[in-house]
């Protein structure tokens, strides 16, 4: 049996750019509100209330459908999806469906992602508009540890897009890149601020080597998606290795513990009793609306990548990574325009900045505050003037991202590369006097030069640029040799 990994995603994104919820006048920004204060009779599902569609949601969905190359349906049809759960005020969710002559807002589509320089097409199955549920709050954070649960309906009724892919991913990395790209597309479209807590959630289904399919719910970010899937692959392969079988089941990703656990909720699939919502007559999606949205589509990640690669001369790979996050790309363009050297800036952002964010799980917005355009510009200047070496520059980035250190302060503390040649000449003289044997070795064998360079670096506590030190020593050896 092969161990080919097959992964599909179901992504839920809140349309955070809408002012109000999907079917009532409550604010779609429920965050930081006292529990159960962002509610009304409609989103609480009181007896006798009726939903009225926030029609702006159609425009947002159409924009997403266009960006994902999906086929837009002729009308919006809502259905009721039934299941009992305390966070669902009506015990049904107003959603969409694709059977029995019913249609989601859009079907089909594709997103091209760049995986280590190779491009890969991910197929989209469908896009739904639906309402979000309330939130269940466990006082002890987990179900099992808590004696009771609290329910906050502030989120209930917020507009969601559900974007479902075909099972086109072959690795956790691919799934992660797709989710990043999707988030970036939604950011560019001004549909969603995916950096908000809970604004983008993914469910992944994964099967290995054609074995049973496992669904993983409750994944909150691209980073967690990669981690959860990697964990799940290891878990499943261990079971297989020890002779066990993989059960078809639903599991939950517990971010705090870095693992997936079996979900206690019963599998409900197939018993949702879908039927068209009689309170919401179908609404046609007019050609005019589609054309209007299409004509005002902003620049999207793919075309932006082409543009910045050319405009800043940074190479296709760098560009493709930068556009995976709109804010990151905005940060790049802003900084590059302010202080030049786009190649260095893109390299810092892609190779250093992102790495530290990921390693320490720091939100991008925090990272950008710490490695602000201002600080980034100064770093570039220090480097260009030779005040810091490339090695030290990387260290500065790390300190800025992880510890919010200001490069100016670091320079003031004297943590700099010693660029002044006179100072270095003095130190080299010292090293030569202290190590006559090494000098004569180096005269015979050019490889032994490294010892002398190391000694200089040690005296400068690593602040010297090794390239410059190297040059000075070679020059001095030539002088010695001719004596």
């Amino acid at each position, binding site marked *: 049996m092969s161990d080919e990994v097959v992964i599909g995603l179901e992504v839920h994104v809140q349309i955070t750019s809408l002012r109000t919820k999907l079917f009532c006048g409550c604010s779609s920004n429920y965050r930081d509100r006292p529990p159960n204060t962002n509610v009304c009779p409609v989103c609480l599902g009181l007896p*006798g209330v009726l939903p009225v569609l926030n029609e702006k949601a159609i425009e947002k969905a159409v924009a997403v459908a266009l960006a994902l190359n999906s086929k837009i349906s002729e009308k919006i049809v809502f259905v009721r999806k039934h299941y009992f759960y305390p966070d669902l005020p009506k015990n049904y969710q107003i959603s969409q469906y694709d059977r029995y002559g019913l249609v989601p807002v859009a079907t089909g589509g594709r997103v091209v992602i760049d995986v280590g320089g190779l491009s890969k097409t991910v197929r989209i199955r469908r896009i739904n508009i639906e309402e979000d549920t309330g939130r269940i709050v466990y006082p002890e954070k987990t179900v099992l540890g808590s004696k009771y649960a609290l329910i906050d309906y502030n989120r209930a009724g917020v507009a969601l897009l559900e974007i479902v892919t075909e099972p086109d991913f072959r690795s956790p990395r691919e799934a992660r890149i797709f989710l990043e790209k999707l988030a970036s597309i939604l950011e560019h479209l001004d549909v969603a601020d995916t950096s908000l807590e809970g604004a983008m959630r993914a469910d992944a289904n994964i099967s290995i080597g054609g074995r049973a399919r496992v669904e993983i719910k409750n994944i909150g970010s691209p980073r967690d998606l990669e981690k959860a899937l990697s964990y799940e692959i290891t878990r499943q392969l261990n079971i297989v290795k020890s002779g066990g079988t993989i059960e078809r089941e639903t599991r939950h990703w517990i971010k705090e513990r870095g693992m997936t656990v079996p979900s206690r909720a019963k599998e409900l699939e*197939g018993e949702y009793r879908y039927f068209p919502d009689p309170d919401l007559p179908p609404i046609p999606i007019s050609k005019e609306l589609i054309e209007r949205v299409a004509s005002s589509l902003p620049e999207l990640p793919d075309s932006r990548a082409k543009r910045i690669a050319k405009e800043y001369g940074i190479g296709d790979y760098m560009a493709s990574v930068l556009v995976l996050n709109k804010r990151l790309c905005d940060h790049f363009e802003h900084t590059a325009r302010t202080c030049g050297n786009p190649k260095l800036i893109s390299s810092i952002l892609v190779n250093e900045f992102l790495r530290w964010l990921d390693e320490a799980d720091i939100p991008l917005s925090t990272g950008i505050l710490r490695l602000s355009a201002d600080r980034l510009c100064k770093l570039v200047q220090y480097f260009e003037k030779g005040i810091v070496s490339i090695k030290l520059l990387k260290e500065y980035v790390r300190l800025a991202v992880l510890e919010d250190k200001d490069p100016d302060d670091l320079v003031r503390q004297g943590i700099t590369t010693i660029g002044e040649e006179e100072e270095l000449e003095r130190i080299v003289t010292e090293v030569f006097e202290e190590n006559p044997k090494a000098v004569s070795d180096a005269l015979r064998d050019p490889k032994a030069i490294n010892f002398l360079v190391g000694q200089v670096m040690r005296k400068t506590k690593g602040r010297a640029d090794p390239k410059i030190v190297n040059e000075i020593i070679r020059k001095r050896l030539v002088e010695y040799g001719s004596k």
Partner: protein
Amino acid sequence: MFPPQCSQNSLISSLSIRALREKVREDPDFLFSYIEEIYKVIEKHEHQLRAYITVRPKEEVLRDAEALLKSNNLGPLAGALIAVKDNISTSGIRTTCASRMLESYIPPYDATVITRIKNAGGIIIGKTNMDEFAMGSTTENSAFYPTLNPWDLERVPGGSSGGSAAAVAACEATAALGSDTGGSIRLPAAYTGTVGLKPTYGLVSRYGLVAYASSLDQIGPIGRYVEDVAIMLEVISGHDPKDSTSLKVAAKDYGSYVVDRPIKTYRIAVIEEMVEEGVDREVMAVFNKTLERLESYGLSVEFRKMPIIRYSLPVYYIIAMAEASSNLARYDGLRYGLAQEVEGRLWTEVYKRVRSMGFGKEVKRRILLGTYVLSEGLYEGYYLKAAKVRRLLYEEFMRLFKEFDLALSPTSPILPPRLGEVIDDPLKLYSLDVNTVPINLAGLPALSVPGGFIRGLPVGIQVFGPHFSEGWLLNVARLIEVAGK
């Protein structure tokens, strides 16, 4: 003709909306003696009839009257005491749907129709008894008590809006609101000798009507006079942005259709299947007499076959129960309504207890059947098929109304049953609605108007027509009303 509860008192208690309005405009203080009079009827007869679930305290109503007179907002309903079916949301007044589930539920908001009634100068007097969640045709399915028929206390007033119809018939209110999903306004109107109108689907906002079957439900008026029903309809109809199924039409001057002559030489159809087997002979006699009277006005009457109408009841019950099972899912005792101790119990356990204790037998039956027909693998055979037949029925009606202006039938095939006579036999119970149900399936307007009496029991005539033909219906109803005097 009014039942004894009215005539035993002075003429005041049976005043029409217009007469009351004129008297109040002339002499504002008259409103106070009118209110006293109506409360006298209630005090005397309500303990027997039990038309209400909640009667507002007289002092509160008198205060509302005072405020109304002070505001000088003497609109079309000035001073009218409106009884409201207990499935219509009234802010601050308990709205129970005659269910244990909502026994103590006090809504925080008014239904759109309630707002409109208040703006027109009407005063809510109380909330009326009904079959639980409007599921039933006799008002015996109330979780609290049955309402009796004012004409014969051993008989049912019809349902599910039986409390509203009985309150109006017995002069315990000026007029009332009911709701009609398969005949729930017309059947009680027929059994209590009142006039009840189910509007075109979408003409009256459903915002605030506790849903039974959303694609069939409509709120409508019940009155003692055709004119009262016309005035009420004018007040409550018209587009409401809070209801996405509300149609973008303006309210009409329905009162102008209530004249004693036909405003058009109506071509009237009688659908043979509605007057064939199962219709009581005495009821048919009253119906035929009504047809003769209309013909004497120079109107033509023709009989037509419409075989598909036989499928109305099964189609209705599949669709209504499917929608009901969905609409009633929200009652879990968590946010409002019947509450159960949650501590130490799983939420599923709490839900089970709440729903087992909160719902009555008929409600459970319909939820179960509705859940069944929506299940995976059965949906296409039941719900989808029913939806298709519904469409065919609609098209058949459209064809009929190309040839005819209106149609007539007996509202109910039989006279009001005695208490307990039909309640235990669902099929018999459901057949009471055989002539009213097809109307809801096609979204048509229809009314029931008294056509005569048999042994002291009223017989209702159903008049129905194409969408938005309410004006014509009221005109013909007025002709039948005049003839009946």
